């Protein structure tokens, strides 16, 4: 069954929030004014990503440092080759719609 979309308030710039939603743990973040939503789980060894540093459009796993492209979910380096799941985020004013049925359009690997 496909989860329903998630509605929420937009985040302040350079902040993040972890949300449990219909069995998914989602990390929503605002970096440099752009919102991204990814599954809050490192595909390398299953750690939460939410304490990882975000810089230059990448989040670094706090455990072993794998970096994932927030747009595409693709990892850098060779610790894992599995992309993290990403979700498209639509912003209307100060509200966000995280589209659970739709991967981020950049992420072909999870569509």
């Amino acid at each position: 069954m496909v989860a329903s979309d998630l509605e929420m308030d937009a985040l302040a710039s350079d902040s993040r929030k972890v949300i449990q939603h219909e069995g998914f743990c989602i990390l929503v973040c605002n970096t440099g004014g752009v919102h991204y939503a990814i599954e809050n789980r490192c595909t390398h060894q299953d750690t939460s990503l939410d304490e990882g540093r975000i810089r230059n459009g990448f989040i670094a796993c706090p455990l072993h440092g794998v970096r994932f492209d927030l747009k595409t979910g693709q990892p850098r380096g060779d610790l894992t080759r599995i992309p993290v799941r990403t979700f498209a985020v639509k912003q209307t004013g100060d509200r966000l719609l995280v589209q659970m049925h739709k991967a981020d359009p950049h992420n072909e690997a999870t569509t």
Partner: protein
Amino acid sequence: MLKPGEARAPGHTYQEAIAKDASQPPEAFLDYSYEFLGDQDIPYTHYTSHDFAQSEMEHLWPRVWQMACREEHIPEPGDYQVYDIGHLSAIVTRTESMQIKAYVNACMHRGTALKPPGDNGYCQNFRCPFHGWVYSLDGELLELPEDWDFPHVGAGTHSLREILVDTWAGFVFVNFDREAESLTEFLGVLPEHFRDFDIADRTIETHVCKRLPVNWKAAEEAFMEAYHVKETHAGGRDFSEPVTTYDVYPKNVNRFIHTVGSVNPRMAVPPSEQELMRALWGRRGPAEGDCPIVPEGATARDVYAEVIKKSLGAQYDMDFSHYSTAQTLDSIEYFLFPNFFIFPGLSLPMVYRFRPDPKDPDYSFFDLYFLRPTDSAKPQSPPPEPLMLDVQDSYTLAEGLGFLGAVYDQDTDNMAAQTRGFKTCAKGGQTLGNYQEVRIRHLHQRIKEYLEN
């Protein structure tokens, strides 16, 4: 009768050319430091032999200072950058006390590399993905899972192995040899020659890493002389540049500097200053506005340098009025043995780093950076992720290279042809010009010294 190495191209030297500029060039630019280093051929086996590559890996690479990254790659505690050279790998990081440190990239338990090749990023500590041994940013063994089984292990014996690290001009250098001479000693004349440049304040604007179809030394050599420019980049046509100086400095530095936009004294009918101006104006594709008129008594070089200083000044919101014409326009390329090139000039702001491919001496890796000047008082954006190009990929895929993308492709075409030719050429070695190719000889002389000592 001239001795070998004493002959020069007819006409003025680079130093004489820039002495006529309206602005005073840096003193170092006027220096002559050529030395005849012999005229024997360089054996092709030095490029093609696995044994020679192995010897370099044993005797050269573990003992020399190498540029691992820029300081801006690791601005905060926990930021790290992996530097790989052959089978060796180092982690360069920033500690909580803002010190830069470097470690051998291997867990002290069973040797697992802690970080993947070329990786960069951020971590609170270094944690081995195999059994979870944890090291602090200072390299100290912090956590040892199930320590009841390791009575013979402790922070004193099993902390990360530190290697030498030091900085110059915003670059972080490492040396795997803990007994090595200091970086300052290794750099020789470089800091003095770069006195008039603000390299530490520059940041990376473009970074391309390409796999090249040639041995690392031949890759470097393609950029060590301007002799190839007329054929490789201009189809053999006469043109208005360059006039070049080649200089060698003890022990690890050499350079060329060549003019941009000056009269080539070898041309039978020299172009007028206005014709030179027109050639410069078209250099970067269709330029905006009308080509300036060179006033009577002025030179195209000086007029064009003012245009460049103003346009780059507007682009970067900075003042470049203190840059001389030579600093602004010329191709100023310094080499630090064994694999680092830096162009401190304003309009050609490159840095090169070459590394062997440990799997095959016929291939190498070439990191090409463009550094942009910055106002250090303003916040800077982090360096871009490197664009990775494979052997067949064109440099023109890298937008940041502009018109130079096609130029680097021309250089790369020669490299593949050289690799093929090395193996079929019956002569046995490369023949070099005494003056224009002296930097290549200097490179091989230094390698020989490392391999024989």
